[in-house]
């Protein structure tokens, strides 16, 4: 089927003002699609989302700067009839539109835009999805951790459940939505029709458990928190303290266990029948950790990791976010992008992986309305219509809205 338009031929509109939709669109952009962020003339809500770079003047959102890289920016208030007309022109030229509207609005929007454009793929990324009894419920980053089941299983069993440090549930929904977008495009090649792709963070996260759900359906057991250890069956798959911080060691197999004991200069533990199976090791976790401690506490993270990796035992230092940025592996693989316009030394993940269609050069997040004129011209809006949109305050050009 050679000769069909490839990734660079895909036109994506990002109307989402949430992390999930924004990451979905970013992923499409990193795969080579041409993605346009369409935000209100007052700016996307993501422009004020923490973490805020308060060291900069003016303050900027690290979330927006990261999530909007490789996107063009149009400032357009499409809630008015005049503005919706302009959005319609953009939609006429789009393959995919990504939204994060609440259920009733998303469904109304879907009917309105897809009835006239049957080939359009509409990707909706919301907290609970567009149907079901919780579809209208409110959400936050914290409740997203709660809804998908990760909150209950993370943290100390004797304390309250613990959230992750970022909106990673929304990222999972965003990747899932990007998979849905591409699948719907592939289906369109056969049918000629687009469709609505409905992704909820709750389900995307419920789908991202290793064995929690089958543990209930197959055995009726609740999965509990286990601090920094494995919760059910293995030891060590855990964080362990060393002289200058923590390492994560994973040695569930007997071969790894044997190699671990030898590397830690405790070969007698490898032959000890009390630790012969992973289950026995799991039950003896406290005792094992106590026996490992003197060796580990006399070595640094990098010493322990080198020793264990040389013995084919999975292990890494717990790196700080500062240290990650100096990591030689990520550096060697040219993983970083450098948004130098923000600050000298500013650094963030670039392409998550490289496809033949991926953009070669970094493109920073757009200033508000930076590409409005170019993009609207592309879809056939002429100068006088542009002037009229600007006069009525519907569009923003280069960071300014009229009036």
């Amino acid at each position, binding site marked *: 089927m050679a000769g069909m338009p490839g990734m660079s031929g895909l036109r994506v509109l990002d109307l989402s003002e949430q992390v999930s939709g924004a990451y979905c669109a970013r992923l499409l952009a990193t795969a080579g699609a041409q993605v346009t962020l369409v935000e209100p003339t007052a700016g996307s809500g993501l422009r004020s989302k923490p973490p805020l770079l308060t060291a900069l003047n003016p303050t900027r959102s690290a979330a927006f700067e990261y999530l909007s890289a490789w996107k063009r920016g149009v400032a357009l208030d499409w809630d008015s009839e005049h503005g919706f007309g302009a959005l319609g022109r953009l939609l006429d030229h789009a393959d995919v539109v990504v939204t994060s509207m609440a259920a009733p609005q998303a469904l109304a929007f879907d009917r309105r835009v897809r009835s006239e454009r049957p080939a359009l793929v509409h990707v909706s990324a919301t907290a609970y999805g567009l149907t079901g009894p919780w579809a209208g419920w409110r959400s936050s980053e914290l409740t997203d951790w709660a809804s998908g089941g990760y909150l209950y299983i993370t943290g100390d069993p004797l304390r309250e459940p613990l959230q992750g440090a970022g909106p990673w549930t929304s990222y999972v929904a965003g990747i899932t939505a990007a998979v849905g977008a591409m699948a719907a495009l592939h289906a369109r090649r056969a049918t000629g029709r687009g469709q609505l792709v409905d992704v909820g963070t709750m389900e995307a996260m419920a789908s991202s458990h290793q064995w929690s759900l089958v543990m209930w359906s197959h055995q009726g057991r609740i999965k509990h928190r286990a601090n920094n250890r494995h919760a059910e069956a293995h030891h060590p798959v855990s964080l362990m303290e060393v002289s200058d911080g923590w390492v994560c060691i994973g040695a569930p197999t007997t071969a790894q266990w044997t190699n671990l004991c030898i590397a830690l200069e405790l070969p007698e533990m490898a032959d000890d029948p009390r630790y012969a199976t992973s289950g026995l090791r799991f039950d003896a976790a406290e005792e094992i950790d106590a026996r490992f401690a003197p060796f580990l506490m006399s070595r640094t993270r990098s010493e322990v990791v080198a020793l264990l990796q040389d013995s084919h035992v999975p292990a890494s230092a717990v790196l700080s976010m500062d240290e990650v940025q100096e990591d030689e592996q990520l550096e060697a693989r040219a993983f970083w992008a450098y948004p130098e316009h923000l600050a000298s030394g500013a650094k963030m*993940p670039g392409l998550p992986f490289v496809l033949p269609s991926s953009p070669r050069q970094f493109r920073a997040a757009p200033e508000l309305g930076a590409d409005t004129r170019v993009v609207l011209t592309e879809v056939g809006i002429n100068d006088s219509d542009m002037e009229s949109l600007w006069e009525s305050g519907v569009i923003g050009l280069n960071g300014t809205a009229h009036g």
Partner: protein
Amino acid sequence: MVEGMLSGVRVVEFGYAWAGPLVGRTMGDLGADVIKVEQDSARGGHVPDDPVLLAALDDWRRGEQVEPTLRASVYPEGQPGAEPWNRSGIYNKHNRNKRGLCADLKSPSGKRIWRRLVEASDVIVDNFSPRGSKSLGIDYETVKRWNPRIISVSCTGYGHSGPFRQRVSYGPVLEAHSGATSVTGYLDGGPMKMGHAFPDPIGGLHGAFAVLAALWERDETGQGCFVDLSQLQTYTAVAGELVLETSVQGQPPTRGNRSRDGSLQGVYRCRDESPDARESMDMWIAITIEDDDAWMRFKDLVGDKRLNDSRFESEAGRLEHHDELDALISKWTRDRDRFELAARLQAAEITALPVMTNGDLVESEHLRDRGFIVEWDQPGVGIYEYGGSPIHFSDWGPAEMRPAPQLGGDNRQICEELGFSDAEIADFVADGTLIDTPPVGSRR
């Protein structure tokens, strides 16, 4: 009308554990023909000689384990049965909508089968180490000579290049390396890992996206490609704004369950449950109060006069007295049912959700209404419930759910499709190339 969204696409998956199988499963849910290729020891049996493969190979589907090791496989009702390699709940959950080929790819016959399979396929997915895929002969350099249209997506921990390319890893190890563990934790605590190996599903989902984008691109170029996906990178990518923040103004401190946007929020203890004699469960609710209006609604609903204190009127005041408010809120939630409480709060337009346990998810009225909880009749296991596809398509679906393959369960059918004669297939079985039971061995 298409049968599946990806009908006509064939994916060969060499997945162990979670990330690789998730790529295959996602493609299978979407209607691709996914063939999972396994070695005889992948689901149990003797110890392979190659220590690198050993470090990488799936460990959890082994027959001869005793409790609590046995828990790792999640057999139905805890019973491994006569063929434990076909009964692991985890395996069957990760490998639905696939066919199974179990073959010795290093034997001369195995190499013939492998070459024909490559010629007849669109995508190869693996999550072996670079050395492991080379030693099996499934690496891109080998397969592209037979099929230049092949797309090879290799989901390693660290990637195929760089100084750490030969490192071995599991999800929690990559999580530690990414920096995410160091920022997650209680207000007063050290680093904390996630309750599951979170880099695995994040790597696997990115991998499925990579497959779909590479297939799309191939329709223009006619050429396949190699995608070198590092799960360390895909996991660091979801912490992108934290990396950027750190590079500009330093690493943020751990923040427990606190917000970064001025919301008052927390996870509060509710009435415990004891579903049976075996265990008592601590139950919780997550509540987020975003602004002054939400605070007014919340304190009206709670009706505790102490919340009327003027110190709590402003956002700044609430954040200053967060601990005190947490204690007051906990008193109110402590003896209440988490589901009833969440419904009351949501009805009053206050953001709240029960902290869902694994049991809550399977029994969830919301997820069932959306058709997310599915069941299938797994041969040798019976009918059990599983999580379904998280993607809902208006024009297609719900995704069909076909059981996970038995070890080598589709050997004959696949070899027939590849054009091998009955006599050849009989030889493959006789010479040990095609296998459907794991070797009996000493692996513990």
